[in-house]
């Protein structure tokens, strides 16, 4: 089973967008069984209606989609209320935080109330990681170590750097915090994915495309051609994601 653990739904403020029809067609073409939908930040900046949109998609096609609830922690109590609505009314399987697009540092203490809410509902937290000034692996590690009972998913391999200079820090983050896994989208380099899966733990990596920011078909090649055995690949393709997002949702 192939689970794409991060696909953005809607038209983004940042000049990209996919409709549910387009996402479904892409999944059918590429043989993806299930996708975890993430609301984009829309042109009007209002995340609530986007959470609603994701929820409606999941309710229409529960066999195909799960959805994350996205909040802006700068909204303080309103963010906590939206997270609560996401978990209790909208059926969200986790929380999505985007330090890059919502402009906060990943270990800023404004996150504490929304993370407490995720912990209260036993929901995983996906963080758009690797953006040096806001979601550096050290910052993800810092916040994750304050919430050891919360499962975190650090996007983009936990590091975005085309010199590879952040790989060491991302690995240290994973070794220090057993409650963090990484997703594969855009990861520099493929041997980092292999290294983490074989040396840190085959349960510590999930396939995600991050589309349409990244190309879904191309992102699949990172797992398809990985120098891993079939059992390890099965975990990356979907078993790890199901364990994180489905088991906790039930």
């Amino acid at each position, binding site marked *: 089973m192939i689970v794409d653990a991060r696909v953005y739904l809607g038209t983004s403020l940042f000049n990209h967008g996919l409709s549910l029809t387009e996402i479904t067609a892409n999944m059918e073409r590429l043989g993806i069984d299930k996708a975890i939908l993430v609301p984009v930040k829309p042109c009007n900046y209002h995340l609530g209606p986007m959470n609603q949109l994701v929820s409606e998609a999941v309710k229409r096609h529960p066999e195909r989609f799960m959805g994350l609830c996205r909040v802006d922690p700068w909204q303080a109590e309103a963010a906590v209320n939206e997270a609560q609505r996401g978990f209790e009314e909208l059926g969200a399987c986790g929380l999505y935080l985007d330090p890059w697009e919502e402009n906060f540092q990943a270990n800023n203490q404004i996150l504490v109330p929304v993370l407490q809410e995720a912990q209260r509902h036993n929901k995983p937290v996906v963080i758009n990681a690797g953006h040096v000034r806001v979601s550096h692996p050290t910052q993800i590690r810092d916040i994750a170590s304050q919430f050891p009972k919360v499962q975190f998913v650090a996007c983009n391999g936990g590091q975005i750097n085309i*010199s590879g200079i952040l790989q060491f820090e991302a690995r240290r983050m994973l070794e220090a915090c057993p409650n963090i896994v990484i997703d594969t989208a855009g990861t520099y380099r493929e*041997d980092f994915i292999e290294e983490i899966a074989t040396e840190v733990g085959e349960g510590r990596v999930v396939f995600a495309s991050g589309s349409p920011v990244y*190309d879904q078909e191309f992102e699949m*090649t990172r797992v398809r051609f990985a120098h891993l055995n079939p059992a390890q690949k099965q975990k990356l393709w979907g078993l790890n994601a199901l364990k994180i997002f489905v088991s906790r949702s039930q």
Partner: protein
Amino acid sequence: MIIDSHTHVDRFGWYDPPETIIRLMGEAGIDQSIIMTYVDAPDVKGSIEYIAEAFQKYPDRLIGYARMNPRRGEEAQQLFRKAMEEYGFKGLKLHPAGNRCHPARQETIDLIRLATRYRAPVLFHCGDEEFTLPLQIAEAAKACPEATIILGHCGGYFHTSDAVRVAERYPNIILETSAMPYPRLVREAVERIGAARVLYASDGPGCDPTIEVHKVKLAGLTADDQEAVFHRNIRRILDNVTLEAHSI
């Protein structure tokens, strides 16, 4: 036919002996690869010789670029001359994030001009870090219009638009596809500056050459443009390189 314009062989930084890239070339169906270290000469003693030994061991498969630290001035220039004339290297690699030497500093310009005397291409690491930004490297391209300047990684994750823009501005800039994660950028580059100025590369062995080949194939180029990107362009550039320095 595929020539990979940017790969690594090293025993000083990350450990990647030549056999690693040879194996991955086999998996990806790559005929030849341009190799370079992860470290600068002359800072790391023996790094030039290590690359020379590798391409002498696999003369039909591997081609060498000399990765140099321009800050070492005359010492770097002498070693580069030796690399070109005695060992048969084919190009210069610069990684300003590593040696903290701005692309437009006089030491860098001097080294680029020396490479140009051999008609050898200059491959820059071009990503998101300070001193490697496309607009910074463009200053070197402007100062050395006779040089062939290759933007490795095409601006990385966040500076790809700048990479294409400076390539439109300076005809001596070539874009190279390795490691950046956007197949659509390959197509955009071909559409905006022409297929003759785009090179396939992987940044292997860390970035899997098989995956990097797929990236170019996913760009949806015409068969002729794809051939240009996969081998014709870099072959044209390498065929122009000489063993002796010319005046410029």
